[in-house]
């Protein structure tokens, strides 16, 4: 993911050590200087996200990464980035929580990521990779989307993705000098009016106008950027809804179920915001049940239920505290609803 960031043209990375994502920071420390980029190990996650805020305002493609407790600390900064319309890419390698929790894979940060963990009325594009090759693809995409919509974009990974290895093919690197200009950036007011980057608008009418404008951009994102994958859903009577590592495990469960004659499919949101409500709505009209499986106590299932609106059963199966569901666990749950 670090290499993908560099290839996406990121030339400013700021981070603070936290397991299970230290390799990312260490990779940046070793490789950012080779491309003339900036690496700073900040004094805290709070400082790191604010360095991103400054670097992004100065026009650079910027990135930070952390894991759950560290992401909580970045939430204030994310709100400011959103409020000042600054692009930045954040990687959250989610671990068990709440509190210090543990360093095992988990998905307990779904609400925080998709519903606005910081204050104020903002949204953040959230991309959820299920494999390492897809992580690379989505990190590259994250930079494109961040710049296109001037929003912070989060790549929501988990401790399993953070600690595994897979062969990958890297795409060709992007030349930062060839990226579209950012006329709004802080570059020195030479031959132009001064640029101001701020989220502070004391006049309610002005703040409202800016917020309304931003909400329109969010609407555009919802119309154009929803990404998801459907697997074996054409004839399915039952569907598992899962994202990230869990979706990968669920794929195996689908194969196992199919070998036993159960018509199981999988819907995997790739963007968890914007969430693929429409495809779930469509599925809910022709399946008996949509089983949501997560490594938490039931977070994405709320979005699934919003989409399904009681047209089908919407049970939930979750593993907590850093425990990872096995394909057998999922199959066992599926069988409860297949009968």
């Amino acid at each position, binding site marked *: 993911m670090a290499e993908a960031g560099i290839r996406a043209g990121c*030339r*400013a990375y*700021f981070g603070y050590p936290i397991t299970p994502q230290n390799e990312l920071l260490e990779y940046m420390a070793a490789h950012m200087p080779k491309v003339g980029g*900036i690496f*700073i190990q*900040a*004094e*805290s996650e*709070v*400082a*790191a996200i*604010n*360095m*991103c*805020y*400054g*670097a*992004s*305002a*100065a*026009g*650079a493609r*910027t990135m930070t990464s952390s894991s759950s407790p560290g992401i909580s600390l970045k939430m*204030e*900064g994310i709100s*400011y980035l959103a409020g*000042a319309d600054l692009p930045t890419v954040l990687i959250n390698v989610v671990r068990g929580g709440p509190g210090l929790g543990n360093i095992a894979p988990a998905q307990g940060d779904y609400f925080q990521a998709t519903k606005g963990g910081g204050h104020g009325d903002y949204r953040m594009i959230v991309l959820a990779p299920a494999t390492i090759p897809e992580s690379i693809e989505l990190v590259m995409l994250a930079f494109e989307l961040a710049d296109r919509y001037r929003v912070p974009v989060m790549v929501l990974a988990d401790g399993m993705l953070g600690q595994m290895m897979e062969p990958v093919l890297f795409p060709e690197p992007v030349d930062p000098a060839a990226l579209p200009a950012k006329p709004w950036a*802080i*570059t*020195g*007011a*030479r*031959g132009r009016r*001064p*640029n*101001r*980057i*701020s*989220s*502070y608008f*004391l006049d309610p009418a002005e703040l409202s106008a800016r917020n309304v404008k931003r909400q329109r951009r969010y609407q555009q994102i919802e119309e154009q950027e929803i990404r998801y994958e459907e697997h074996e859903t054409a004839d399915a009577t039952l569907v598992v809804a899962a994202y990230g590592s869990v979706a990968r495990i669920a794929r195996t469960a689908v194969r196992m179920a199919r070998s036993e004659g159960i018509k199981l499919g999988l819907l995997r949101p790739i963007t968890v915001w914007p969430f693929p409500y429409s495809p779930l709505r469509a599925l809910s009209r022709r399946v008996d049940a949509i089983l949501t499986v997560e490594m938490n106590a039931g977070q994405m299932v709320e979005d699934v239920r919003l989409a399904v609106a009681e047209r089908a059963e919407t049970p939930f199966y979750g593993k907590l505290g850093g425990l990872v569901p096995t394909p057998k666990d999922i199959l066992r749950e599926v069988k409860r609803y297949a009968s």
Partner: protein
Amino acid sequence: MPVNAKSMVKVFERPKSLTDVQFTYCPGCHHGLVTRIIAHTIDELGLQERTVVVAPVGCSVSMYEWFHFDGIQASHGRACAVATGIKRVNPHLIVFTYQGDGDLAAIGTAESIHAANRGENITVVFINNQIYGMTGGQMAPTTLIGQWATSCPTGRDPALAGYPIRFAEIVAQLDAPVYVTRQSLYDQKRIMATKRAIKKAFQYQVEDKGYSLVEILANCPTNWRMSPVETNRRLADEVVKSYPLGDLVDRV
């Protein structure tokens, strides 16, 4: 005798680096002086097209509106981290933060110290008026012992709230900073000294020397509940006893 305009020499004018937007500072407040001194300095050094102000949370929250150069608003306490990000991406820019005592020495202690310790080539202007101005006069980390504030209604008690924090001294013991000074504004001589200090700090940044901190003992007539004249007297007679004036570090 008719006045010949051509023979008159302009000895005082609005700095070019100031916009027409009216300050939101209270009457008699030293913030206005420092804001003007900075604008004047940027003019003198010819840096208007390269300068970036990082505005804090506090009475100067929207100060980027007053300067005729690029500006950015930082979240409370994080100005030095924001300045770090800007300066590292574009070292050609002249980046300064303008922060009060709550912003720099309470909520932003970590960012303020670590930017100094990394020797970021930025200029930090620190307004020490011993109180939270914008929020209505609460105790600051710099509030003097016994000083009244709305959140220490019987005066600052060190048993409860510790002692006035001498931030310039904390920064001065680090290896990286090149210029650390404490100035004040209670009379003309001090104002001129502050002007010289700010100019030196910016000059060092232009020369890539590194991090500078200019701490300025300032007033807050509104929340000290004094006339501006009384605040100047208090600064000269009492405040400087807790915060000695002068250069602490000048490594250039």
